[in-house]
């Protein structure tokens, strides 16, 4: 039985690029629940821009797999949320549609790149939202906005319809005000999809119950290393003590491959991005100048004016890293470093059930605070290892530092989303 949801809120934080005031919905576990979707997930009939000028006006003819699942679960899709252009950023300021403000403090950025989804949830405009996470893009804004966000294992959620930034790293995942809603949305979108060659056939998610007693939780010293804000570290350490109080066994450990993680992440993601973003040439979608120049000139004109600065930077760096004569130095080395990260996780998970630490090394940035791209890249140090290894990771609110939300990150074994969600639920509810 179909009904229509009317969405009549304002959007004071600029969380949305597109708002659907009237959204149809059906029966199912999400029946009538308003859900926001990050603007890099293809939605049939709803403009999908990836936060970029180059895709302005692009209305996809097809739904991504996660959207199909949302619709059949009865959700009302009420809009497309703001993001760093093509997912490239940690603040949602790199959007052609203006920055999003953090509902916890409107002078601050919500984090990114799924900042619009996080702000929409944190401000109560929607109960839950879909984001995507390539190097922390769900967990970072969840941490900065004080909500729950999950990056599923690679292969758990179909990427069909996720507009690629870095294919080998990214997953679609849920953001919600609490662990139960996060797990609910996750249970809807998880599952095998034959249209995604990297999708896996796995048992469906188990029902959620708070469970943490007896779990062995590793805490790598590197998670509290150089660059981690002392107040943030202290809030997260007391969060980890609460896990211990709930019956978990805390095991100090080490993850030496962390020192290669950022370089491996940026070389891999920029290389893949330089290839993925080649298709935006103005021939099939997006705006194109009515030009009679050669196609070479038309392409470079369209791409120069259509992409923002950060996207152009990453395309150039990625093209360089893949080019003849340099590929061995950069791309191939990054893959070797990636294997070291994966091996480190595998080694640790032989003795612990999950890892814990801060999601981000800091609290939310002030709008316009960081204009230096390199220091922005450094903020991803704690989130990228899970993407490099393909393991699941979530961020759950853990308290505040500098009067701003701080997230606790739990990283699980491959396909052990249930285990980290159950632990997060116990942590959130304060019961084991």
């Amino acid at each position: 039985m179909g009904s229509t949801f009317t969405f009549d809120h304002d959007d004071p934080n600029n969380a949305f690029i597109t708002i659907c005031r009237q959204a149809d919905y059906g029966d199912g576990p999400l029946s009538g629940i308003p859900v926001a979707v990050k603007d890099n997930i293809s939605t049939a009939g709803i403009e999908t821009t990836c936060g970029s000028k180059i895709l302005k006006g692009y209305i996809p003819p097809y739904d991504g797999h996660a959207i199909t699942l949302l619709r059949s679960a009865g959700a009302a899709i009420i809009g497309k949320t703001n993001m760093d252009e093509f997912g490239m950023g940690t603040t949602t300021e790199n959007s052609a549609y203006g920055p999003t403000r953090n509902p916890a403090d409107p002078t601050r950025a919500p984090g990114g790149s799924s900042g619009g989804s996080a702000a929409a949830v944190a401000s109560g405009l929607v109960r839950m939202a879909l984001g995507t996470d390539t190097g922390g893009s769900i967990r970072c804004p969840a941490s900065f906005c004080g909500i729950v966000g999950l990056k599923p294992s690679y292969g758990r959620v179909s990427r069909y319809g996720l507009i690629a930034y870095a294919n080998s790293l990214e997953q679609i995942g849920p953001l919600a005000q609490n662990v139960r809603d996060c797990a609910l949305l996750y249970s809807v979108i998880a599952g095998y999809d034959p249209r995604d060659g990297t999708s896996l056939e796995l048992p469906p998610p188990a029902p959620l119950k708070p469970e943490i007693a007896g779990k062995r939780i590793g805490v790598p010293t590197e998670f509290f290393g150089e660059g981690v804000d002392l107040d943030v570290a202290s809030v997260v350490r007391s969060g980890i003590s609460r896990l211990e109080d709930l019956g978990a066994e805390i095991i100090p450990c080490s993850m030496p491959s962390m020192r290669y993680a950022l370089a491996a992440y940026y070389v891999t993601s920029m290389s893949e991005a330089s290839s993925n973003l080649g298709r935006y040439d103005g021939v099939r979608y997006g705006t194109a100048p009515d030009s009679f120049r050669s196609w070479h000139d038309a392409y470079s004109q369209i791409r120069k004016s259509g992409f923002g600065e950060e996207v152009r930077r990453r395309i150039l760096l990625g093209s360089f890293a893949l080019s003849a004569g340099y590929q061995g130095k950069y791309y191939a080395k990054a893959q070797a470093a990636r294997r070291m990260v994966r091996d480190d996780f595998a080694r640790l998970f032989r003795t612990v059930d999950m890892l814990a630490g801060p999601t981000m090394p800091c609290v939310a940035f002030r709008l316009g605070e960081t204009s230096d791209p390199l220091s922005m890249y450094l903020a991803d140090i704690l989130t990228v290892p899970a993407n490099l290894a393909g393991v699941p990771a979530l961020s759950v609110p853990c308290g505040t530092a500098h009067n701003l939300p701080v997230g606790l990150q739990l990283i699980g074994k491959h396909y052990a989303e249930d285990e980290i969600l159950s632990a997060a639920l116990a942590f959130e509810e304060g019961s084991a």
Partner: protein
Amino acid sequence: MTVIIGLEIHCQLNTKTKLFCGCSTDYRDDGPNTHVCPVCLGLPGTLPVTNKQAVIYALRVAKALHCEVPAFSEFARKNYFYPDLPKAFQITQYDKPLALGGYIEIEAEGGGEKRIELTRIHMEEDPGRLVHKGSGDRGRYTLVDYNRSGVPLIEIVTEPQLSSPKEARRFLNKLRATLEYLGIYDSEREGSLRVDANISIKGYERVEVKNITSYKGVEKALTFEITRQKGMIRRNAQIVRETRHYQEARGVTTSARSKEMEHDYRYFPEPDLAPLEVSSWVEEIALPELPDARRDRFMQQYGISQNHARTLTGDLKLAEFFEEVTSGMPEIAAPWTADILLGELNYRDMPVTKVPNLHYRALLEEVKKGSVTDTSAVEVLRLILNQVMEGQAPEMPGVIIARLGLSKEEGESFVEVVASVLKENEAAVADHRSGKAGAINFLVGQVMKATRGRADPKEIARIIGDLLKD
């Protein structure tokens, strides 16, 4: 000057659907952009899924050509911008191809077999196609048709072991026959095979010729390029290592602007596809009878010559046709089909599949019975083929023979005609009497002409001999 040629052959596999999506590959009779979907249009967010059938087809080729299939191979992205390439990269295979090594045996100059070794076989997707409106470089606009985008291709790369355009043609004929026998390729689909060739004269730089889109083009393009290179050497001009385009219409190769070819394709493994671990599939592939085996069987089973057997098995459809019509009279069917019918078909550019079996078989029976002469039978065959070409229902040979009065008559009924021919050609008669060998043939020819081929030439020769003895 020794010629060295290596070939790269791109061949479309005739799977029902494209390499990475479910669109049909049978687009040639349909309008532009009617066999497309979000995946083969490269729309944002779409993902490729490998068509298992295409992999099996490619493995069939690998097995038939004696290649090694490594335990692990993978797809890679070849990045470049071009309007016919909707993702701005082609999914192909780079340093880990599906198959390595292998060979094809071709007929060597002066008999025997020559083995041409292969470097590799890999799979890739075809790009779309550009349609230029207006004329020349200054055309007003270009349209893009993505029907071809994503059609599965295999690329077969040979070692530089071919030594003449003729060998290259033999190699391609053998390859085409093998691919057709394997049931993975349809040569009648336009543009289903494209060749790039590396050509050099021993001791000089090599030149790559791209864009050869037909079998006939290969021999022409190679011949042109070899003549060009030899001419340059004779003039002491320097041959530069370069890429040239073959201009089919003019039959020449022209230098590609070097800037256009300065590509860095930035290959890297395709992250959206799992590696191919398919070497174990090879065992399960059952190969059909291939051209060499069929050739040997034809010689043994039908007692026909190696040359006839080679010709008849060099094309799957022709081999099948031969086996359908030959029953009980291979000694007539083999030369008729390999020598006469094939010539008539080539002359008309007509596929053997259009020849009506029933009519052809009936004609061979008339020949066997001796009710028509060979000359008359060829006339009947031509008439039948022309009727088919013109879209008419062909007449049976018996009907044509009766209608045109082509029935072979006994020699004696031509005695009068022979006598008058001898009378009219006294010079030739004198030559014959003085022992000139060709004279009798001339006289027989004149009689055949006068009888419109209804007489048996041997019989006529006998009658002429008898008459001149008197």
